[in-house]
C-alpha cells in the first residue's frame, strides 16, 4: 500500500512523536458504530464508586489530595472522600483545599488517626479550627490567599496528586458545571467553579464527583473533560440550603448601613468613580451593602462600570442586568442569583483563581481594579488587616482574596465597625496579619474614616468633599479603647499551629497555639 520506504525519510531520529509506519490493521481503525446514546452509556469515564475512582487514580500514602469550597458550608464531598480514603487505609495525606468550613469537623478524627497529616487551605471555621488552634496537628496548617494558592499550583510547588472536585452537573466524560443547563431545578448549584479550575488544570489525576449526570456535552462547561480522568455519581454532593441562599440579603443593621453609606462617599470622591471604572465588593454585610449606595450614585451621575470582579452576588447581577455593569468576572458565586446569572448572562464570565489573583499573572483581574471594598475582623494602627483569627486568637475565618484584591486595587477600602459588642476592631496590633497595611488605603468605621498617610492625595480629596468624618487611625484606636477598655492579651503557647502566607507565598505572620 505504501509508496515509500519508512527508512528513506531524512532526520527520522530527530523527529518526535513520529511512531513508525502506518499499520492498516491498527486498533484505531475499528470504528465504534454505536449511537451517541449507547456510547456515552457504555464507554465513558464513569466509575461505580468513589472507592473505584480512588483505586484507578493510583493514590498512595503521603500524597496530596485537593478539594474546592464552592459548596461552602453545604459541602458533602470532603467528608465523603476522606471517609472512603480512611476506610481504604491510606495514611499521611496532605489535604490541599481551597478552603474549609464548619461542616468539615470530621477531619479532626482523620487527623487524629494519621490519615491526614498536612493541611493547606485559605481558611477554617468551627470545631476543626478550634482543635487546630489548640494544637491538634504537629505540622502547621498553611493558610494561603486564593491568588497565592493559584500561584503555588501553577508553578507546581503545590503539587496535587489527585483532585476530588464536586460539581453540580457533569456529563459521562467529565465536562462539569456548578449549575444545571438541563433543568430549572438547580438543587446543588454553586455557580462558578473558579477555584476548582486550578486543580483540574494542574492535578495529575482529576475525579469529578457529581449528583447529576447529564447527556454529553455539558456545554458551556466550567471544567472541560480533557482535564478529567473519572466521574463518580453520588446521591448528593451537598446541602442545597447551605450551599447558598436565594439572594444575599441586604443588611438592615443601621451601623453597617452607615458604614456602607460612608464608604460610598469615599468611593464617589476618590477620583476612581468615573465612567468605565472597575470594582470588587468583598463578603460581609457592610461591604455588600456598598453596592446599593454605589448604584444610586451611578444612576444619578449616569456612570457605568466596565466590570465587577470577585465573589459575585445578586446585587452585582441586578446592576449588570440593568446595564450599569458591562462585564462580570466571577471566580466564586456568592448566591443562587449569581449562579443563575452565570448560566444565563452572556457577559457574566467564569474565571479561574489564577486569572483572578495570581501574583505571577500580570493580567490578573485584581490588578485591573479601580477600587475594592473589603471587610475586616481587626485593623491596626499600621493599617494591617486580620480576617483569619478571632479576638481570642482562635482561627475562625479565611484569607480568601483579601490580600490579593488589596494589593491589586488602585484604592483599597476596608470597612469595619469600630467595635463588635465589646471587642475593639481597631487596635494597636492585629492578632494575625493577613493583609499588610501598605496595601490598605482607607479604613471606614461607623465612628470615623482614616486614610493611610501614604495616600495624602486621597485625604485631600475627601477633605474637599466635606461629607466624610476624617480622623487618624490612632484616634480610632484610642476611641475604641476608651469605650471598650483595654482587652487582656491572649494567652498563647509557643507552638506554631498555622502560617499566614502573603500572596507571594512568603510568611507574613504565624498563628500560635492558644492555651485551653
Amino acid at each position, binding site marked *: 500500500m505504501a509508496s515509500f520506504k519508512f527508512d528513506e525519510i531524512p532526520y527520522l531520529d530527530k523527529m518526535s512523536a513520529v511512531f513508525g509506519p502506518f499499520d492498516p490493521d491498527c486498533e484505531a481503525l475499528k470504528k465504534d458504530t454505536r449511537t451517541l446514546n449507547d456510547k456515552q452509556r457504555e464507554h465513558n469515564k464513569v466509575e461505580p464508586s468513589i472507592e473505584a475512582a480512588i483505586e484507578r487514580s493510583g493514590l498512595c500514602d503521603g500524597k496530596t489530595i485537593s478539594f474546592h469550597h464552592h459548596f461552602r458550608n453545604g459541602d458533602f464531598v470532603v467528608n465523603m472522600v476522606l471517609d472512603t480514603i480512611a476506610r481504604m487505609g491510606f495514611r499521611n495525606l496532605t489535604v490541599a483545599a481551597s478552603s474549609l468550613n464548619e461542616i468539615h469537623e470530621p477531619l479532626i478524627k482523620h487527623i487524629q488517626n494519621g490519615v491526614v497529616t498536612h493541611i493547606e487551605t485559605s481558611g477554617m471555621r468551627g470545631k476543626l479550627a478550634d482543635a487546630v488552634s489548640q494544637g491538634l496537628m504537629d505540622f502547621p496548617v498553611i493558610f494561603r490567599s486564593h491568588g497565592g494558592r493559584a500561584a503555588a499550583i501553577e508553578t507546581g510547588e503545590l503539587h496535587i496528586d489527585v483532585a476530588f472536585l464536586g460539581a453540580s452537573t457533569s456529563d459521562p466524560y467529565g465536562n462539569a458545571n456548578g449549575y444545571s443547563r438541563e433543568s430549572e431545578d438547580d438543587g446543588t448549584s454553586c455557580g462558578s467553579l473558579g477555584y476548582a479550575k486550578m486543580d483540574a488544570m494542574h492535578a495529575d489525576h482529576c475525579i469529578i464527583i457529581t449528583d447529576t449526570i447529564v447527556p454529553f456535552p455539558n456545554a458551556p462547561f466550567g471544567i472541560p473533560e480533557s482535564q478529567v480522568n473519572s466521574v463518580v455519581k453520588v446521591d448528593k454532593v451537598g446541602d442545597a440550603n447551605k450551599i447558598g441562599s436565594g439572594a444575599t440579603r441586604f443588611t438592615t443593621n443601621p451601623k453597617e448601613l452607615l458604614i456602607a453609606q460612608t464608604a460610598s462617599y469615599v468611593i464617589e470622591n476618590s477620583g476612581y468613580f468615573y465612567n468605565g471604572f472597575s470594582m470588587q465588593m468583598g463578603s460581609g454585610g457592610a461591604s455588600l451593602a456598598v453596592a446599593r449606595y454605589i448604584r444610586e450614585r451611578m444612576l444619578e451621575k449616569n456612570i457605568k462600570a466596565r466590570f465587577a470582579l470577585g465573589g459575585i452576588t445578586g446585587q452585582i447581577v441586578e446592576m449588570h442586568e440593568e446595564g450599569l455593569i458591562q462585564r462580570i468576572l466571577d471566580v466564586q458565586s456568592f448566591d443562587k442569583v449569581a449562579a443563575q446569572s452565570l448560566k444565563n448572562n452572556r457577559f457574566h464570565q467564569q474565571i479561574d483563581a489564577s486569572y483572578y489573583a495570581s501574583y505571577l499573572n500580570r493580567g490578573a483581574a485584581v490588578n485591573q481594579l479601580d477600587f475594592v471594598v473589603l471587610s475586616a475582623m481587626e485593623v491596626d494602627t499600621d493599617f494591617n488587616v486580620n480576617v483569619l483569627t478571632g*479576638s481570642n486568637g482562635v482561627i475562625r475565618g479565611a484569607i480568601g482574596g483579601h490580600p490579593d484584591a488589596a494589593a491589586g486595587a488602585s484604592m483599597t477600602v476596608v470597612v469595619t465597625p469600630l467595635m463588635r459588642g465589646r471587642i475593639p476592631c481597631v487596635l494597636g496590633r492585629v492578632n494575625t496579619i493577613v493583609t499588610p497595611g501598605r496595601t490598605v488605603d482607607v479604613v471606614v468605621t461607623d465612628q470615623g474614616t482614616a486614610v493611610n498617610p501614604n495616600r495624602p492625595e486621597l485625604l485631600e480629596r475627601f477633605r474637599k468633599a466635606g461629607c466624610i468624618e476624617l480622623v487618624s487611625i490612632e484616634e480610632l484606636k484610642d476611641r475604641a479603647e476608651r469605650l*471598650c477598655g483595654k482587652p487582656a492579651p*491572649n494567652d498563647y503557647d509557643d507552638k506554631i499551629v498555622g502560617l499566614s502566607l502573603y500572596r507571594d507565598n512568603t510568611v507574613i505572620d504565624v498563628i500560635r497555639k492558644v492555651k485551653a
Partner: protein
Amino acid sequence: MQILEVGVAGTMESSDIMVRIEPKDTEGIELTLESSVGQQYGPQIRRVILETLRSLGVTKAKVDAVDKGALDCAIEARVSVAAFRAARRDDYQWKTKGAEA
C-alpha cells in the same frame, strides 16, 4: 441597700448583660459571671459589677450575670436596676456623671 427578693435586669441580646440578684444570709457578694468576652474582659466586668454594688451599699447578695459583651456603662446600669428591684426600691437618684463630680 438590703436585697429582699430576686431582682432581674437586662437581656441576653448582644452588647447587653443579664443580671440576677437574690438575697443571701451571710455577709459578702457571691458572683458568678458568664461572658462571651470573659477571656479579654472577665476581671474588668467583675470589677464593675462589684464596684457598682459597693457604691449602692449592697453587702449581702448572690449575683448571676450573663454577659454578651456589654460596655461598662451598660453593666453598671443593669446591676443598679437589678439591685433596686431586688431591694424593692424605686427612689433611684438620676444624675449625670458630670453632675456627680
